[in-house]
């Protein structure tokens, strides 16, 4: 378990201060999906759940209350990098 997560705002903090916000993958992209039942249910329920590299949302719920993006290996549970989601907001 990654005991410390590097919040882009607060620095290294205990993992229990954070909330996992789900993976960022082609299955969790809201953009471009139609409102057909098939695509909506896929968006709601399905996940890549990759054993290995994962790009995901984290929320510093017991800290600065900011959402950020983390690159985590889900097998070793090491977080390689964290960053603000600015790029996503701009595009």
């Amino acid at each position: 378990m990654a005991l410390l997560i590097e919040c882009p705002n607060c620095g290294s903090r205990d993992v229990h201060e954070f909330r996992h916000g789900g993976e960022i993958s082609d299955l969790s992209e809201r953009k471009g999906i139609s409102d057909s039942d098939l695509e909506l249910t896929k968006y709601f329920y399905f996940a890549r759940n990759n054993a290995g590299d994962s790009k995901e949302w984290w929320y510093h719920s017991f800290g600065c209350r900011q959402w950020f993006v983390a690159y985590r290996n889900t097998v070793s549970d090491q977080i390689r990098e964290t960053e603000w989601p600015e790029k996503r907001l701009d595009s």
Partner: protein
Amino acid sequence: MVSQLFSRQRFWRKQELSSYYDIVIIGGGVHGLSTAYYLAKFDKDLKVAVMDKSYLGAGASGRNTAIIRANYLTPEGIAFMNASLKLYEQLSGELGLNLLFSQIGRLDIGHTESTLFWLRQRSEYNQLMGVESNLITPDEVKAIVPEIDLREGKPFPIMGALHHPPAGVARHDAVVWGYARGADRNGVELHPFTEVIGITKEGRRVTGVDTSKGRVKAGLVVSATAGWTSTIARMIDIDVPILTYPLQAFVTEPLKPMIDTTISSGELHTYIYQTERGELVIGGGVDHYPTYSHKSTLHMLEELATNAIRLLPQLRGAKVLRQWTGICDMTPDYAPIIGPVDGVDNFMLNCGWGTWGFKAAPISGKTTAELILTGKVPELIEPFDLNRFYEGRLINERAAAIAAAIH
């Protein structure tokens, strides 16, 4: 004669990998092995192989806390788990191996009015479906577990409990070994340390598997890999609604006999029972984020220990013997996924066992085998198809793991 009784016999044979099997089952856990056992029992001529990347029962089958019960909430869940409980009652005889199955009963504790309402609802559903399940008062709880802390005004006071007498525990490794030996005796090949690294396809048809020991052709491939299902799904490019979460538990040092039932509290996300050896097994909810990591954490140990002491204050001085972690394939509706996948032929999923898989293994294997052999979906598993997620027929089995499932 006597020397025969004590002669050492292997539970299953070591086999060379063949180039073709009628059915390849990926995953040598309790679900894969029970599926293989019933397949071979129903049709002895089938060539079946079970493959696992590690030893048999290395995953959740050897890491669960071995509780078996049927006091579920939904008609689908109750019927399915009750059928499994009935199979467990006969299983030691069927497999010729003492599984140490003891029906010590189950108490689901309620600490608030709203939980009592929910437990009442469950007891009514259970009784309607022929499952023994009653709402009992705090004094009746005390009669079953004299050590329980009934003080009023404390945090999480005990206001009642759902009593489910036929529930029990079994030796989980023995269930794995029993099914493995039974399958082996009926001609199934068991291949531990044979990792499936790919699945071969021609068009929409699955034709076999690539393993760490070479390519194998197969008439049908069944995935029974629980926490690793998403990895298998990637091999044939299908999507599954599964997130892999770790689940932790620990045992104390052996203590004098003090409780002879299983106790669970949904509000405290903690459950406790005492093994025949005297150790108290204490488990709880899944970790707060998904991961494949098997590392146990001090945080979870502290949380579970605190809550266990809330129920049984005598445990305050007990020493922890060991703590461990397994990984769980959690589905959005706390119900399993069994059956074929649209768009892929000769392939079947048996997954979504989350934190509720051990108790379901006998009926899961039996119905999966029936489905494979007859091509018809047995009524018990009809609601558990993958398409329910596309069609909005989710089951919401909130009683699947009230203490464990909070993802």
